[in-house]
């Protein structure tokens, strides 16, 4: 039994090392991912905007939650994904891990940006100010800086392999720092703002609000994967353009 699992892992490792295998498999996933994400997000947004009831305390502005929470989750998930890809890249030297890291960065940064903007817009009717230096928004802002750092570092290095390894190291260093940063920002926040309004109190959410939120979260995860695969496939085409299989694909397109 263990031998079977080990063989499967070895097989998977070799497959993942092959850009062609990844390109073929991801190609089959694309239509499904598109359909599922459009469906889930569509239903969630319509439900959240139209059918969900008004919140007792916050009125209608809470509806931003259906975008803000998934974006926040994805922003954090994205960085962890980058760090994992970084570890895989440094330890097992997998090409696909390098590509995954490079492509995740702009997507994660975009969702981080969305989380920040929606958080700030939500804050205005709730707390009266566009930006309130609350612990979660501030941590999200620092996360955006960390993302931009990885993007800036990778674009500053010309050699593709060196850029990949540098990004890997920075992502790993960053991910170790993220819990430390979160803890210190929360600590800092309690010292300066004793009464903080919690934006989300998921456990006390009515099902009419919780279900569209969950649908939205799943939908956005699918969307994230879709965007990531699209970018990774482009990267593969660009990097492997001298190989026969890529030339065949590109020839079919022209």
């Amino acid at each position, binding site marked *: 039994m263990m031998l079977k699992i080990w063989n499967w892992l070895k097989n998977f490792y070799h497959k993942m090392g092959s850009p062609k295998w990844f390109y073929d498999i991801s190609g089959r996933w694309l239509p499904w991912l598109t359909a599922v994400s459009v469906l889930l997000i569509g239903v969630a*947004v319509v439900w959240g*905007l*139209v059918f969900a009831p*008004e919140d007792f305390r916050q*009125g*209608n*502005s809470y*509806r*931003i939650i259906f*975008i*803000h929470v998934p*974006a926040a989750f994805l922003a954090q998930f994205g960085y962890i994904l980058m760090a994992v890809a970084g570890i895989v890249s440094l330890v097992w030297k997998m090409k696909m891990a390098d590509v995954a890291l490079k492509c995740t960065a*702009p*997507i994660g940064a*975009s969702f981080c*940006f*969305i989380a920040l*903007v*929606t958080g700030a*817009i*939500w804050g*205005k*009717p709730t707390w009266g100010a566009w930006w309130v230096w609350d612990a979660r928004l501030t941590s999200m802002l620092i996360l955006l800086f960390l993302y931009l750092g990885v993007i800036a570092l990778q674009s500053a290095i010309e050699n593709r392999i060196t850029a990949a390894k540098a990004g890997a190291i920075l992502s790993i260093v960053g991910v170790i720092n993220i819990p430390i940063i979160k803890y210190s920002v929360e600590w800092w926040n309690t010292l300066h703002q004793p009464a903080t309004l919690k934006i989300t109190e998921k456990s006390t959410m009515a099902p009419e609000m919780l279900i569209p939120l969950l649908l939205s979260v799943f939908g956005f995860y699918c*969307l994230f994967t*879709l*965007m990531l695969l*699209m*970018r990774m*496939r*482009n990267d593969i*085409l*660009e990097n492997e*353009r001298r190989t026969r299989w890529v*030339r065949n694909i*590109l*020839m079919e*397109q*022209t």
Partner: protein
Amino acid sequence: MNEFINWLYMDGHGPYVWSAYGISAVVVLFNVVSPLLKRKELVNQFDRQLRREKTQSSL
């Protein structure tokens, strides 16, 4: 019709909700359109390279 306008207005929170959703939609759209455009650019680049190779081999 009135109901629809009321829904858009969201008791005064409308501008906030719609701008939040709007900005997010723009960012999401950018992240979907950008790889599509890049793919087209790659295909065009390859097309040009192919034509260059053809003219070179026919010389």
